[in-house]
């Protein structure tokens, strides 16, 4: 595995007013690695992943994405956002654009490519997520699973180095989860650097290189899937696993 670092957090703190959402977060993710973040609700998983592409700012510590240190400088923010792709729990597709337009949007308005060229790239990616035949539909006409696959394709259009997933399957009906996980598996196999907040323990077991367990704003355990599922180091993780697996 490539040992270069894609993401490096050192001593990151974040407050929402008087509430500390992240406490002294230290984490390094190598290029090509798939890291799964899990933990109970309200533990700061979304907050953490959103600081990585500056959707949330952080108060203390240092975050480096692909060697770019995140600061208030707008140029850096732009650079970081271009090198990361994000997939949200609720898809967040643009409802007034067709599937194809959703996918060409970034290429045209961020990359500045022409219509034809963007459509070529977008179609290629839509084919990859097996949804090419729906390109002229609007998001409202698709099922949840299809929408999430479009959202993944859209995030991939800008050829990001790092993909961030925030509970990509938790708004989906059970039968649609697998089609989205399928796409994520392919990405992981293809060597994409991925940071996923997810409660899909099956995916974590099989594809995560490391599992990060969070509680009340801190990372309290980082281990390989084998360790994490067979012998969690902390009581809290044991309890969490018991709850989630008994489900």
């Amino acid at each position: 595995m490539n040992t270069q670092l894609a993401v490096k957090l050192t001593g990151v703190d974040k407050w929402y007013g008087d509430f500390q959402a992240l406490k002294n977060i230290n984490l390094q993710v190598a290029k090509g690695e798939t890291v799964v973040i899990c933990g109970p609700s309200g533990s700061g998983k979304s907050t953490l992943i959103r600081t990585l592409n500056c959707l949330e700012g952080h108060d203390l510590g240092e975050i480096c994405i692909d060697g770019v240190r995140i600061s208030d400088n707008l140029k850096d923010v732009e650079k970081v956002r271009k090198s990361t792709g994000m997939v949200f729990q609720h898809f967040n597709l643009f409802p007034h654009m067709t599937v194809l337009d959703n996918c060409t949007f970034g290429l045209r308005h961020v990359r500045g490519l022409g219509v034809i060229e963007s459509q070529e790239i977008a179609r290629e990616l839509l084919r990859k997520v097996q949804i090419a035949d729906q390109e002229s539909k609007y998001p409202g006409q698709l099922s949840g699973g299809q929408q999430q696959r479009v959202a993944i394709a859209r995030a991939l259009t800008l050829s990001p180095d790092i993909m961030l997933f925030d509970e990509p399957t938790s708004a989906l009906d059970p039968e649609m989860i697998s089609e989205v996980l399928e796409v994520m598996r392919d990405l992981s196999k293809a060597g994409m650097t991925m940071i996923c907040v997810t409660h899909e323990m099956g995916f974590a077991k099989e594809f995560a290189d490391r599992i990060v367990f969070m509680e009340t704003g801190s990372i309290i355990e980082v281990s390989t899937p084998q360790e994490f599922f067979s012998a969690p180091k902390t009581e809290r993780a044991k309890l969490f696993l018991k709850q989630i697996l008994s489900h």
Partner: protein
Amino acid sequence: MITQITAVASTQAKRPVVRKSARDYLYIIRRNLFNSPVDTIVTLAISALLITYIPLILDWLYFSAVFSGATRAACNPSAACWIPIINFMDYYIYGPFPIDQRWRVDTSFVLGLLAFPLLFSQRMPQKIILMYIFLLPLVLWALLKGGVFLSDISTTALGGMTLTFFLGIIAMCLSLPVAIILALGRRSRLPIIRWVCSGYIELVRAVPVLTFLFMASLMLQLFLPGGVTIDVLFRILFVLVFVSAAYKAEIIRGAIQAIPSGQIEASYAMGCGYWKTMAYIVMPQALRNSVPALITNFIGLFKETTLVMILGLLEVMGVVRATFENAEWIGMHVEGMVLVSFFFFAICFSIAQYGAHLERRIKRTKY
């Protein structure tokens, strides 16, 4: 069974074609108009009213009305007298505009009306439509007021439908962009911008338009260095644009707030900046959702142009009233007001139809 179904035989099931027979129509009429004793009474009463009054109105307007003649003596006292209206029609349309320059008015009418098919067309690229709408006020100003390529026309020479049209179109075209800027400003992250925009909107909404019009005509002059004057027309337009923009800004702000923040985040996450996100993600949706309210506002604005009469400008209502102060035709206001109503109805109804068309088109994309 009230409908006959013409089945289509084919291997694949097709949607059956449903035809209505005469009996179905009778049934529909009975169901909708004579369903209960109360329904029957209401239907009969309204029919009776219509049957008595429509002929009377038509008779007054047309059948007994007088269309030709030279003096008041030719008129029928119990019906409309269209003689002055017909005689003064040119004046109503062009106002005191110099006769040899009337082609300028005609051209601007054509350009203004051309906006309609353009707005209705589905094929025309949006960029061209937007360009047209933004250039229209400038072109109209250059045509009707002159000063750049054409000879200057004094403001007192603008009147009648020409003036109403001029004020209405320019105010409508310019108030929307101003409103968008105000709406965005009110949601800005920079406190100064937010305060200025909020303060502005609150102030303007809380003071009657008429007050601003008076202030524009009287007070502005006090603050300008001596000798500098701004044409009263410009000042009036300024007031119309900036007052109606405040109302539109609130309509648009409401629609912006209704857009899920997740979409904005998704756009930012792709590296799209604030302005592009607003232009391509937020505004298209916000404007679509505020079409009904905006159309109402546009109609109101167009009718508000009659207020400039107070400042001595003779827009359509003013010129019509002026003719009936003429000794020969004094006191024949009703016919004049019928004409004015018809003029405003034709334009405002067209605007409303455009709104309905937009809503249908938006529904068809059913996102």
